[in-house]
């Protein structure tokens, strides 16, 4: 369960890297052609300075992600978030998603594993939303590198309740139908 086979179906993001590299090369060539040599090198200099500023944070970020992965009891997570876990389960799922260090190659297989372990559509939605919006690792390493603290704080605070709300919405919209199918005759 901790290492679902689906995670190995694809190499982590070769496609992503190619896309990012292509974007950079095309934009660089366009910049050189349209804005001239001087502008190109000015931008390049700024970018390299930015890279140097970001580097220590990236190093700390990957160390933190590695440590969290090793220290978090991932096998217990599924037990805390069963189908009848109510609001507590949804909240837990959201925070579990926020704490999960790692990319889509980790989050989506884990959501499938949660589903298999008895979590419902609400819980997995809360989990994936928590991971997508509140990922601590991503916010610490990437978001704070590129945005001001005020912006990050505003966005994070506004998003705090979203995993719970989306989980509830998914439960109301989709889980009820399944529950009805399970217990026909009890009416709407």
């Amino acid at each position: 369960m901790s290492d679902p086979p689906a995670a190995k179906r694809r190499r982590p993001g070769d496609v992503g890297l190619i896309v990012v590299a292509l974007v950079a090369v095309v934009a660089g060539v366009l910049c050189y052609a349209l804005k001239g040599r001087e502008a190109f090198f000015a931008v390049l200099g700024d970018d390299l300075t930015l890279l140097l500023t970001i580097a220590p944070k990236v190093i700390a970020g990957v160390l933190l992600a590695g440590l969290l992965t090793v220290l978090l009891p991932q096998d217990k997570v599924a037990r805390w978030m069963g189908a009848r876990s109510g609001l507590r389960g949804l909240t837990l799922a959201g925070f579990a998603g926020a704490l999960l260090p790692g990319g889509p190659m980790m989050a989506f297989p884990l959501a499938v594993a949660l589903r298999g372990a008895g979590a419902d559509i609400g819980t997995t939605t809360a989990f994936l939303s928590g991971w997508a919006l509140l990922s601590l690792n991503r916010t610490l390493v990437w978001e704070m590198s590129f945005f001001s603290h005020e912006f990050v704080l505003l966005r994070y605070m506004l998003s705090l309740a979203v995993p719970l709300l989306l989980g509830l919405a998914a439960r109301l919209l989709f889980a009820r139908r399944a529950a009805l199918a399970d217990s026909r005759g009890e009416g709407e």
Partner: protein
Amino acid sequence: MNIVVASLLLYGAVAVLGRLAWRRHDGSWQRALELALVQARLVAPRIFFAVLGAGFIAALVPPELVAAVVGGDTGTLGLLTASAIGAVTPGGPMLAFAVGGAALEVGGGTPQIIAFVTAWSLYNLNRTFVWEVPITGRAATLRRLAVALPLPVLLGFVAGEVARLAGMWH
């Protein structure tokens, strides 16, 4: 200054968790280091290209255009546009955040950029097709997308209201 405080916090957390792992004496520390190395090798080339790409894009796109499309005065239409751009932005968090940060600097509005980041986070198409659909299946993906769809515009709208109120208090 910002970046110094954030780095201190980060390395503080690394030190605390590192000590925890070290004290287990069961290879946790070594495993964490190995995982960190694997991720660093994955991340380093991408952040390199993302920063370069975002820098060139910011230099190419006229600030007036950014302000006109996703500026602070573009209202709901700007929020919708920013959400759509977030949904189609490819690459990892580095490219998305680099583009968002650059857009803020050349005239993007805070609510619009929050909508952009939220849309990218919740349902960027690249990740949806490469990871979510193959792993969780089409039905589960569609259900999650259905409830997440209005969120970026909503959060952007609330962010605008919060900023407006905060401005009134000053």
